[in-house]
């Protein structure tokens, strides 16, 4: 799910950036430093949308750098366990398939794909029901439920399932 939240960060700035453009410089550096990063707590920072306030700078002992506490609003993407969302399939193999929902990767193991769907290899590997009416392949759109998340320093990785009511393929590129 996407959220609009307020975060705070201490920005360290070299004195050469001071002057009338100080504020612009702080904001530019903040965008460069923060946009595109990911933390386990807040998820992926997609875009900064506004600055709430920039506090008084504090000179660091010994270096001359000044740190400014900056409060900013941003759009973040944070997946939750139990959340249901739509995703695009990016890769299919006999272990299951990978899907992407925005910046996050989700793996759906073949144990969590309905039992009536069989893996078919070939140049377009896919999972298909026995009557061939439903097919999951690259670029299919699926609705899935996140059942687990793993967080490391710079990435969030999810495990999903489509073995539940109202989950599964919502749009098949081959059928369209």
């Amino acid at each position, binding site marked *: *799910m996407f*959220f609009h*939240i307020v975060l705070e960060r201490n920005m360290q700035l070299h004195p050469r950036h001071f002057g009338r453009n100080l504020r612009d410089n702080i904001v530019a550096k903040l965008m460069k430093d923060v946009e595109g990063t990911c933390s386990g707590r807040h998820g992926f*920072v997609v*875009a900064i949308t506004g600055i709430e306030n920039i506090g008084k700078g504090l000179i660091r002992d010994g270096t001359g750098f000044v740190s400014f506490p900056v409060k900013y609003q941003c759009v973040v993407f944070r997946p939750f366990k*139990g959340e*249901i969302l739509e995703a695009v399939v990016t890769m299919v193999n006999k272990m299951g398939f990978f899907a992407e929902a*925005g910046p996050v990767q989700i793996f759906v193991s073949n144990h969590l794909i309905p039992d009536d769907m069989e893996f078919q290899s070939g140049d377009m590997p896919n999972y298909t029901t026995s009557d061939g009416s439903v097919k999951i392949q690259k670029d299919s759109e699926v609705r899935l439920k996140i059942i687990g998340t793993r967080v490391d320093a710079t990435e969030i990785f999810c495990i999903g399932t489509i073995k539940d009511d109202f989950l599964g393929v919502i749009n098949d590129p081959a059928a369209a």
Partner: protein
Amino acid sequence: MSGEEEENAAELKIGDEFLKAKCLMNCEVALILEHKYEQLQQMSEDPMNQVSQVFEKSLQYVKRFSRYKNPDAVRQVREILSRYQLAEFELCVLGNLCPETVEEAIAMVPSIKTKGRAHDDEAIEKMLNDLSLIKKFE
């Protein structure tokens, strides 16, 4: 990390910080990101080089999965859903997935049926009807 263990969106356990935060539906994110992208386009020749991969992927994703395209419809969806005493998170899941039946809505957002909340099937059905009307007249 005990907080991490208990996280479960189906029961609306998403941490205080996110529960109080403003949730965004995909269509709203699309409006925000497209606006930002246009601003970047005016400032430089090659805006795709300026943005992070996270931004690019999110923009593609929300464009693909936006149920409502025009800004007025997006505003209406939020307005209508906010009449039903939903949590922000529930509101956005419904707005994103647009369930068609009451059963589907409850499967998508199990927390609307938990004890002590005033959502009977009729109220949910009315809400889904209102939503599909917006889609029809968009």
